[in-house]
């Protein structure tokens, strides 16, 4: 019986280089941490030779000429790990997922299929290279010895039975993967190699390092044996694609997204699952130099301006890759990423597929999939910010609101609950209103878009107003009510509002209602419209536009 261990040295670095092969030619430092504590956690040999040290701050590394810096990518490591397991499964179902960088294949029964152990090891090595991984392979009759050989020797190492102790002896104790505490103790003792460790009296060692000491002693002598722990199939659905060159056009990205979605949906199908949501993440190129404005937090970027995220929340679980691609494309077209894309991460939230039966008394509604598609199409047509449910914004800027996602009630119970809670809110509001000093219950209709106006002032007070066919003398005015803000943005505002009551003059047409008919009921064909005698409006002077506007009218 023989086992082969496949070990990827400098795994974190290799996981990054796998997608950027050009990095293999020069110094590369991998950093990790939360700014400002971003430090070097790994590097390739070129980088060590250039003077990069473990734990060095990123800013220090930046001062080294020609050293490439990449952030550690756990997603890429996961992808590399998955590739490593694929490598094992490609020749045998009996594999062990030993560690992120290590796996073991049981060679039992493979000889007749693939030839000698040397041949299989050579074959594995070649396959690993084609996956972008330079791996060490250790073959031995014991799992542990195979693992240590792979970790300790570069290339392919085959250890014949009986020579384990001799061959392992020269390796550093670190390859035995002792616990941090034991490793520290061994370092303090000056124990450097497996041979040093094997030479320590076993019982004394067990008195000091306990069972771990005994186990390490066995490992150091190449005498440990154990069974293979078979790897379980994974349940994580994520596909990552790192682009060699940053992509700015959406069309080629859509093509890549289609491939990724096909794979994702196929994987879901094998597990009889569907997706309730698809998370799309684009890592964007360096933006700050181009436009610092982008560094502001936007809904798509979360907290990181170099990240563009979209979540496709699906009304019902689905796994139709073509439909999903359509939805994603529509979303992307309505709010394209602000910069070039360097990495795509696509993941699915798995769920059981939808049961088709709905309530007997629930009114019929559009098919959720179709509704989602329709909303997405409308969104593309009118823009993301112009579709959904309006929501007030916490600002002094007059008339400001934003659109939130359109979320219609799902079923009867939900509607009832909502109605109940609505009533409760109204009651609370009423109580609050009563407690106010003086509460005006007058209604106010906002004109959107705002109406340009001409306002004549006398002694600083509005005296006459003209706008969209309305002409009136101001008989009462209250103001100015001044608001200003967002001074740190280019669209800062400064407005002086006046509440005015006007008496409509003779040149007025049929009143405001004729022009903004959606606010006022149109008169029937038989009725002669009576121009209103007076009206109350809110007009304001926009200091930025240096013009007057009508904000709306009081009912």
């Amino acid at each position, binding site marked *: 019986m023989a086992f082969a261990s496949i070990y990827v040295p400098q795994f974190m670095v290799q996981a990054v280089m796998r997608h950027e092969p050009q990095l293999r030619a020069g110094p590369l430092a991998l950093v990790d941490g939360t700014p400002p504590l971003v430090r070097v956690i790994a590097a390739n040999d070129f980088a060590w030779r250039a003077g990069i040290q473990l734990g060095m701050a990123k800013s220090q590394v930046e001062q080294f000429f020609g050293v490439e810096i990449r952030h550690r990518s756990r997603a890429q490591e996961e992808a590399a790990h998955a590739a490593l397991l694929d490598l094992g499964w490609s020749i045998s179902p009996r594999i062990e997922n030993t560690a992120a960088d290590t796996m073991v294949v049981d060679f039992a029964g493979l000889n007749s299929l693939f030839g000698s152990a040397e041949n299989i090891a050579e074959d594995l090595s070649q396959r690993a290279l084609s996956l972008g991984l330079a791996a060490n392979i250790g073959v031995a009759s014991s799992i542990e010895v195979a693992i240590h050989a792979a970790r300790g020797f570069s290339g392919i190492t085959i250890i014949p039975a009986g020579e384990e102790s001799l061959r392992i002896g020269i390796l550093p104790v670190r390859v035995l993967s002792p616990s941090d505490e034991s490793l520290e103790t061994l370092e303090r003792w000056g124990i450097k190699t497996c041979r040093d460790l094997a030479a320590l009296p076993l019982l004394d060692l067990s008195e000091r390092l306990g069972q771990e000491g005994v186990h390490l002693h066995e490992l150091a002598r190449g005498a440990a044996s154990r069974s293979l722990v078979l790897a379980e199939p994974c349940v994580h659905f994520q596909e990552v694609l790192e682009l060699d060159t940053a992509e700015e056009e959406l069309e080629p990205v859509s093509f890549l997204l289609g491939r990724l979605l096909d794979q994702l949906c196929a994987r879901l199908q094998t597990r009889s699952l569907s997706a309730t949501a698809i998370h799309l993440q684009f890592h964007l190129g360096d933006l700050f130099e181009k436009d610092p404005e982008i560094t502001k937090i936007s809904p798509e970027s979360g907290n990181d301006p170099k990240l563009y995220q979209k979540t496709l929340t699906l009304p019902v679980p689905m796994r139709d890759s073509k439909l999903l691609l359509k939805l994603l494309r529509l979303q992307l077209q309505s709010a394209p990423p602000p910069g070039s894309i360097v990495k795509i991460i696509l993941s699915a939230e798995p769920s059981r597929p939808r049961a088709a039966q709905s309530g007997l008394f629930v009114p019929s509604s559009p098919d959720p999939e179709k509704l989602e598609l329709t909303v997405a199409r409308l969104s593309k047509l009118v823009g993301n910010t112009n579709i959904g449910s309006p929501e007030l914004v916490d600002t002094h800027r007059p008339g400001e609101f934003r659109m939130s996602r359109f979320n219609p009630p799902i079923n009867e119970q939900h509607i009832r609950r909502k109605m109940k809670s609505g009533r409760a809110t109204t009651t609370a509001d009423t109580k609050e209103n009563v407690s106010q000093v003086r509460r005006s219950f007058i209604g106010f209709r906002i004109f959107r878009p705002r109406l340009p106006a001409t306002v004549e002032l006398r002694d600083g007070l509005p005296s006459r107003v003209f706008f969209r066919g309305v002409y009136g003398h101001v008989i009462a005015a209250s103001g100015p009510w001044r608001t200003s803000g967002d001074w740190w943005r280019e669209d800062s505002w*400064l407005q002086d509002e006046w509440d005015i009551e006007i008496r409509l003059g003779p040149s007025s047409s049929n009143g405001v209602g004729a022009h903004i008919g959606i606010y006022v009921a149109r008169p029937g064909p038989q009725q002669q419209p009576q121009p209103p005698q007076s009206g109350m409006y809110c007009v304001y002077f926009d200091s930025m536009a240096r013009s007057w506007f009508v904000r709306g009218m009081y009912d």
Partner: protein
Amino acid sequence: MYTELHARSAFSFLEGASLPEDLALRCVECGMKSMALLDRDGVYGAPRFYLAANKISLRAHTGAEVTTSEGWRYPLLVESREGYQNLCRLITRMKLRAKKNEGHVSAEEVAEYGKGLVCLTGGDEGPLAYALAQGGIENGKKYVQELVKVFGHVNVYVELQRHLSRAEELRNQAAIEIARNLKLPIVATNGVSHAVPDQREVQDVFTCIRNHRALTTAGRLLARNSERHLKPREEMSRLFADIPEAISNTQEVSSRLKFDLSDLGYEFPRYPVPDGKSQASFLRERAMEGMLRRYRPDNEKARLQIERELTLIERLHLEGYFLIVWDIVRFCNERGILVQGRGSAANSAVCYALGITAVDAVGMELLFERFLSEERGEWPDIDLDLPSGDQRERAIQYVYERYGKLGAAMTANVITYRGKSAAREIGKALSFDTETLNRLTALVSAWEYKDENDTLTNHFRDAGLDLQHPQIRKFLELCVKLQDLPRHLGQHSGGMVVCQNQLDSVVPLEPATMPGRVVVQWDKEDCADMGIVKIDLLGLGMMAVLEDSLKIIRDDYGEEIDLGQLPMNDPTVYQTLQKADTVGMFQVESRAQMACLPRLFPVKFYDIVVQVAIIRPGPIVGKMVNPYLKRRQGREAVTCLHPSLEPVLQRTLGVPLFQEQLLRMAMIAAGFSGGEAEELRRALGFKRSVKRMKDVELKLRSGMDKNGITGETQNTIVQSISSFALYGFPESHAASFALIAFSSAYLKCHYLPAFTAAMLNNQPMGFYQPATLVKDAQRHGLKVGPIDVTCSDWLCTLEKNGEKEFRLRLGLRYARGLREEVGRQIVRERAVRPFSSIEDLKLRVPWIRKVELTALAQIGALNFIDGENKIHRRDALWQIERLARQVGPLLERVGISADNEGVAHFAEPRVKFSPEINQAPSVVVRHSPLQAMTPEERLVADFNGTGMTVGPHPMGYHRQKMKRLGVLTAVELRSVPNGRRVRIAGAVICRQRPGTAKGFVFLSIEDETGIANAIITPPIFEEYHIVVVHQPFLIVEGELQNLDKVISVKAEKIRPLNVTRAETVSHDFH
């Protein structure tokens, strides 16, 4: 006429955006004759507002907004001194029972302290707005009636504010109705929180900081508009045109507010004297007693000076002050706490006679007027240096005990927004992501050195940032605007104020972060400006070293040293100073001082005074160092800036070096009066105002013009004087420091073991790391023993080494990771009975952790625990691992051995039981199967475990190799002629880039023979930046500069040197 009665300054900490001075100036621009400053829960900004207002004939009213438990605030205006005292007491009571920046008052307390105060009904945060929001107009009326009940009908004004907001106007209408109803007067204010409209931006940023939000997410927390600024009276009249009495009433209120800060009622405590004596007579007696002790009885000059000083002290009624300081000094002397006055007090012969200072002002002909002058009309300033740490705390607590908790307090230290702190907060407010924020704040220079192009704008431009971009521009603008605005209140390191009556009626008191301390709301400048006497009780590490040295000398040498009686002409001290062999000596140990000492070549005490004063930014930037040194060496003729200045500059060879000289120069050359000279001094030391400096310069020039001093001479004199803006020493202060410097030098020269032990026991302090101090002492012949649990105490101690010699034993405090209580327990247990084994140690010091034992074993502190049988470090580590996993009782008594196959064999018992009760079992020591550490491993373990090694210097192991590389030692450099190319190598112990050195970097490089210096020019630093900043060991190659025994290498090539993995530490000044 309109008076703003409700304004907040930046001293409302994040609730106001303008300094009090800016508000005052703006008031005048707006045509106001008076203004009231109402900061939140304090009168923090009142002195600065009062002083600024005084200068421009503005009446400064005082008041505060005081927070209640419901969250609203009483806007209170001070009408009379009683009102001010009540306000201070009210705030003190509120502050002292709460955590920092918290606290509120109750209605009962306000009723108790309401007299003399006028209450407004407030704006958004006032009682009326709160009441209206809670329960409408009826509730509002009820609250106002409550105010009337507390403050009286005539002391409540219904306040109206108009910031052009509908909701506010609605409230105003309700307020008018209530006022009419209750027949209360109405008053208009603008609820000011910034001087000019632009500063609203700063106010919004402060709001974000206060609420931990960004500008984009702060929403309606931000100001609705920019109307909360000081408005001209016409604008206010227009705003309140419908209620004209609201404007006219502001005048009425203003005329009622009679109080200002000149009427604080502060009184310095009277010193209790025996019956039948006055303070004056008691002081005179003490001074005369002292005179006899300090001077010979026939020293007529001293007697006359003391007499003259006493007369002035009596005329100014300052006897109590001198007696109180004398009392603190007496307390310290009685308890063996070293104490010495510094600063201008050393100009006084009375202070010398009273034992407050140690500098003979008569003998040194120091200028008494610099300390005290009738003309200045302000309290003298006495600073006392005390040993840092517990001893200083004892002195502080004595003052608290003596004058009561409400009679004494520390002065505050106002922490302001500086470059990086401002940049960071603004970046957060502007929602910059963390990475961008770090990049931007990194552009704010971190080095001390700044050249004229070292501006934020240039940094940004160099970093490739577009300054035209709105966000970047805004960031920059805000960075500038936020500079110097108060951030929070800290505690001054040693300034104390005391008061005859309750101090809390003079200024509100707050709890300090340190338990048992209270702090006043004003910083030391404000206290001085308000005429409150301050005594600085400053902690000085070297005082602690001197004190500890004396104790060690007393205990181990059996000798008593009196620092006041040291032979001031001791040749050894001067020879040592001349050689710049000054590691560890006070004030003369820095690299710059060392580079100056051989050239200055001190031969008498006054030379040390000069030496202490000369290496300061003032003389360096004023280009006074080289002329002085050249004249001293006879290489330049001694000339004076102007013949009239000869008497002033004669002592310093025609070069002004001390503050007093500059004052006298101004008096003689520009005809300044004593008061004007004092103004000049304060402008020089006053960092806040460049403008102030400019004003003084103009005055100087016009004065000199009048005296016929013009042209280049005038320029040189002005330059000499103004360069002191960058900090220079007064002669008296330099003399006080020089005394300490001499004492430290004397002790180091004659009692090296004791001095070194004291230095090591008071770390961190001084210029060098303990590793350097130890190596320096070893080079001077001191034997230093490693930490050893069989003989080390917690502190470093001396051991007899022969008849008269001592060697130093490192204390357990240097074993990293060993807790002090455990270390002291080890010492106590060892005193009972020596440890017989590591197991015995663990048994008797049960709290010791494995990690602590391991730390001790690694540094070799357990090597001798078994007496004769010395074990090596790894033997000890081997034993400790077993002790950490004790076997059960069955196997404990049985020795087991096993072969390599793991088969156990029972063997002889390995533990012998001692028959005596209470005696620990002694383990039969068996050496471990482990190899002893190599020298390199020991070196690494020593530096990791203690930060130093008492063994050979790391460079010592590699000398042969260094020789092959052509590397010279620090000692060898002395004999190499100037200009020769050399190569040096060693551990970097200090990196420095001083603000005065135009971008040059200075390295101190240590090898086994001593310390060599390297100078790196800006281009070379640019080239080798990474290596210089990050590498612990370096090889430096360049031209040797060996002039006047000042030796340094002007670096041309710098390489890292890999000699050890030991982590040496450098003292860096970036």
